[in-house]
């Protein structure tokens, strides 16, 4: 930095020698000095930049890792109400905003010191001219801060609107079957055009500010030059400064322009970065609602008895789903959960591995409250096959291995056989290494569901929860799967949400839920006999069953 300050000064000395060549040899010394100063300066810039970048990129990568890990730990209830786009923004645009400021920090600090020193040097050379030239510092700082400050609002809007637009595109692509089924391309196009148009408004708002302020960044230094020309010229004529000093002034102005602009930009961006930082901070500070107990109880090996004591559950938005459900599933037995659409079957199933915590009451596995067990232990003992199939866009084998990363190839195949997926997987050109499209798009619905089932049974859990896990497979395959399930079910507790009587025939007991309450619990046949509503929900009335 010191070198930046000395170079214009040396220019001044050289010019003075040119005007008054009494001692020409010094010119060469000074010029040599300038080259030396230039090299030192180059090395300085290089190191400063490199380490500035390194520091800020490192920080960015670390924070991004933390955000990701944190998101992975946040409870279902958080993800229910937080959009993907919002979380993406935290880990991308907010974070870059933060990184920029970090990268600029050392440079800005150095610049501020430089302005002070330069102004001092200028004032020492000539107080009048020094003051005139130094006026440019506040003027340019003010202009660039004002510009950045005005633009911040627009660029924030712009960011917001861009993410809305990307949401429109994302939804259109994900829901393309629906769009095409109803020929609603025009509706989607309308949504997109609207977003594009408001993006245009923000962009033009920004353009206006840019048009007003940007030219100032040239004009202000030029005005500085004019002022130096007028005031300095007169002072040269008066003999107060030498012509060399005069030229040195013009050179100082030239080298300060860029640092001044950057500094102004830095200060104007501070509030925006602070906002981004606080958003990130808020996310990281939000503790997962479901977390490990302070003093975890070890879940000792056991038969897998599940006991629900007076369980009630209400979603955070106030939707009451379960109300005082009490039931005991003896270890090693299987239970079917039956209820109308939206009765709360999935919700009930989700309470066992603590995807949500009960609002009231308690759930115990082998006598231990699930809230007292470490989450990873609990969830490794409870395996869930979700009602909605989600596959990662990787190979089929990888998707099955999500259930148990340690599983051998043989175990993966065994699980696939059990889920009646092995045959169709082998029929694919690349077998288990076939990469399925996003969310498994290149598989048929039933094929996807069977891969997801294989994922659920590849490990050896104490409790297996199947939420309507065969809804999309045909009757023959379903019967085969049920046959296979009989083996799987032995020796573990199995909870099966099902609508089909064929499935209910293989479970030991059925829990029938209606109106948020447990209406009946017992073997399928006895419920059919004793609880008329049960038969109605299954539509297993006389005429139906007779066919």
């Amino acid at each position: 930095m010191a070198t930046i300050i000395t170079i214009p000064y040396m220019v001044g000395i050289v010019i003075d020698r040119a005007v008054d060549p009494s001692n020409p040899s010094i010119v060469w010394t000074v010029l040599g000095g300038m080259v030396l100063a230039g090299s030192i300066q180059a090395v300085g810039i290089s190191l400063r930049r490199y380490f500035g970048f390194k520091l800020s990129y490192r920080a960015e990568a670390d924070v991004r890792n933390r955000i990701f890990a944190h998101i992975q730990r946040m409870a279902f209830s958080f993800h229910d109400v937080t959009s993907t786009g919002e979380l993406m923004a935290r880990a991308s645009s907010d974070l870059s905003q933060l990184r920029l400021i970090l990268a600029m920090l050392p440079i800005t600090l150095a610049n501020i010191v430089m302005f002070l020193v330069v102004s001092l040097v200028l004032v020492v050379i000539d107080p009048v001219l020094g003051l005139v030239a130094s006026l440019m510092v506040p003027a340019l700082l003010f202009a660039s801060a004002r510009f950045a400050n005005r633009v911040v609002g627009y660029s924030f809007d712009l960011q917001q609107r861009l993410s809305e637009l990307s949401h429109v595109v994302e939804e259109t692509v994900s829901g393309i079957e629906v769009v095409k089924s109803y020929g609603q391309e025009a509706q989607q196009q309308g949504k997109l055009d609207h977003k594009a148009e408001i993006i245009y408004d923000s962009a033009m708002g920004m353009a206006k500010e840019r048009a007003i302020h940007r030219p100032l960044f040239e004009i202000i230094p030029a005005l500085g030059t004019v002022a130096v020309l007028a005031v300095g010229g007169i002072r040269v004529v008066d003999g107060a400064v030498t012509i060399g000093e005069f030229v040195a002034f013009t050179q100082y102005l030239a080298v300060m322009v860029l640092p001044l602009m950057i500094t102004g930009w830095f200060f104007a961006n501070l509030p925006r970065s602070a906002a981004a930082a606080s958003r990130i901070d808020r996310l990281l500070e939000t503790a997962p609602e479901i977390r490990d107990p302070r003093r975890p109880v070890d879940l000792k090996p056991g038969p897998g008895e599940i006991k629900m004591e007076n369980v009630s559950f209400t979603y955070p938005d106030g939707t009451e789903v379960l109300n005082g459900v009490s039931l005991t599933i003896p270890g090693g037995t299987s239970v079917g959960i039956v209820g109308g659409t939206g009765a709360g079957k999935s919700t009930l199933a989700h309470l066992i591995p603590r995807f949500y915590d009960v609002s009231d009451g308690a759930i115990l596995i082998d006598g231990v409250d699930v809230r007292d067990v470490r989450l990873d232990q609990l969830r490794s003992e409870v395996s869930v096959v979700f009602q909605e199939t989600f596959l990662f866009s990787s190979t089929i084998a990888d998707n099955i291995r999500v259930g148990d990363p340690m599983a051998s190839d043989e175990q993966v195949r065994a699980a696939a056989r059990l889920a009646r997926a092995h045959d169709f997987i082998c029929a694919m050109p690349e077998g288990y290494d076939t990469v399925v499209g996003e969310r498994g798009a290149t598989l048929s619905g039933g094929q996807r569901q069977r891969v997801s089932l294989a994922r659920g049974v590849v490990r050896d859990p104490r409790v297996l929860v199947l939420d309507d896990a065969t809804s999309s497979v045909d009757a023959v395959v379903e019967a085969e799967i049920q046959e296979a399930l009989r083996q799987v079910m032995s020796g573990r507790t199995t909870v099966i949400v099902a609508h089909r009587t064929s499935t209910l025939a293989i479970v030991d007991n059925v829990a029938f839920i209606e109106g948020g309450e447990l209406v009946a619990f017992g073997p399928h046949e006895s419920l059919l006999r004793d609880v008329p509503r049960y038969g109605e929900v299954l539509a297993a009335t006389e005429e139906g069953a007779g066919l």
Partner: protein
Amino acid sequence: MKYMSSAGDYRVEQPGRLIVRAARISHGLRWPFIGALSATVTATLVRLLGPLVVRGGIDEGITLGDKSAILAAAGIYVGLLVVQYFATALSQWSVSYVGERYLVQLRSRVFSRMLRLDMGFFSRSKSGVLVSRMTADIESLQEFASDGAVMALSNLLTVVGVAVAMGLVDLTMALAVFGIVTVLLVVSVIFQRQARKAYDRVREQIGRVLATLQEGITGVRVVQAFTQEGSQASTFGRINEQHFDANMAAARAISWYFPVVAFLRVVAVVSALAIGTSRVIDGTMTIGTLVAFLLYLDWFFQPIINLSNVYNLLQSALAALAKLFGLMDEKVEVDERPGAYDLAEPVRGEVGFTSVEFSYDSDVAVLHDIDIAVAQGERVAIVGETGSGKSTLAKLAMRFYDPSSGRVTIDGVDLKDLTHRSRLEAMALIPQDGFLFSGTLRENLAYAKPGASDDELWEVLSVMGIAQWVRSLPDQLDTEVRERGSRFSAGERQLVALARAFLADPSIIVLDEATSNLDPETEEKVETALATLLAGRTSIVIAHRLRSAERADRVILIDSGAIEADGTHDELIAGSRRYAELVEVWQRGLA
């Protein structure tokens, strides 16, 4: 390969072709563009005059001791600056106007083109990639439009202008500077190559980071269910680290280039001074000329640095254009042919498949020898093993794909001869995954019929027997369904998707396992509602349940992509061994 992508015909190496094509897409922007160009040229020319005025001030004023000449020069300079301010502001604004307007047009064009593409295209594209066409790629054009274009033009003009001005002021000194500038150019080109590679890598890596992030968020429930948080985080960490490395490679390139430029600038000043002072001593040059020259020097280096930045922006903009054009050149496999016509009203609703063959990839035939005739008002059930091709059949009926051979018809007219509008008005498909858009329940119900009144919505809801349920929701029709409808249970989502289809009121309806998550009682209600709402309509129902087959007028059994049996339920029991087996399995289940 039939579905090979035609993207990538355009290379960034053919910038001319790209730019010409980009210009041809625009409309109504010629005059604003010319205006922007003239403002930019004016601003640059005026700027170039500045140092000459300073020279005058020094030589006429300072050297001769004439204060009024100094003030006159200052006055003239201020005047020039006023002109320069307005010209620059105008140029900034008008270039942005042209650029932004253009992007609105481009976005709309690309999206409408994308919407016309067939389902095959969508199933083999990653949604993240398509989203990034419409966002990241267009944003890099946006960056170029708002920053790069003005910079490119004015800096280029400045460099040329300054070179000319320097030459005019003093040729020898100019030549010395040009020598150094040549070095600068070489250095810049080397930097450019390196930086472009580095930035390409950064872009690629950030794409991977974002894709992994997105999947980590959408799949978070599965991750947690199987306690894979740790392994997910370490996978992400690895990808994130590669992004960091890419960033650092770019940082290294930048870290040597700019210091070298700064050093060269000092060398240029030193050489100008070395030559200049000796000539001032000789008396062959005035001090004013030397100062003017030094001022010009500054305007030489900054623009060249700027240009190398702009070149970066330009490269990404061209790369983005190439990708966008690649998307626009994607062949529309399923297109409305010229001369397509509408179905004759009233639409009868007969559906026909004649010797249809189909494959997603050319090597494996998913459907073959399909001959089906569905009569007006008939209700046909399609049954068969998972993966046998039932959904594919439904997709062909909707013309999501065209058959590899054979014909699919409505009322005897080949779908290929029909206008899209007419076909879509006649048919509706309720796909296996009834996708809901984030927004309110009302928006989702009225999706197929924008502007439907609340009364219409309630009517359909009550015929389906779910009005009560909707009334019990906290915000009723205004309930936010959240991403993919995650506010609802799986069955509730299917009910909404069904209601949406009934509201569309088509002549032919295709239900692809649209009730698989419903409990039997609700399913019954929906089926009854279907009969009421679609009385006299043709329906094709894909289902895995006996009851749907029994209720149908006719059942078609598909096996490995071919029709195994076709007839009424009773005929098939008698005539098809496979069907009889299937029914037996069903009945065992019901017992």
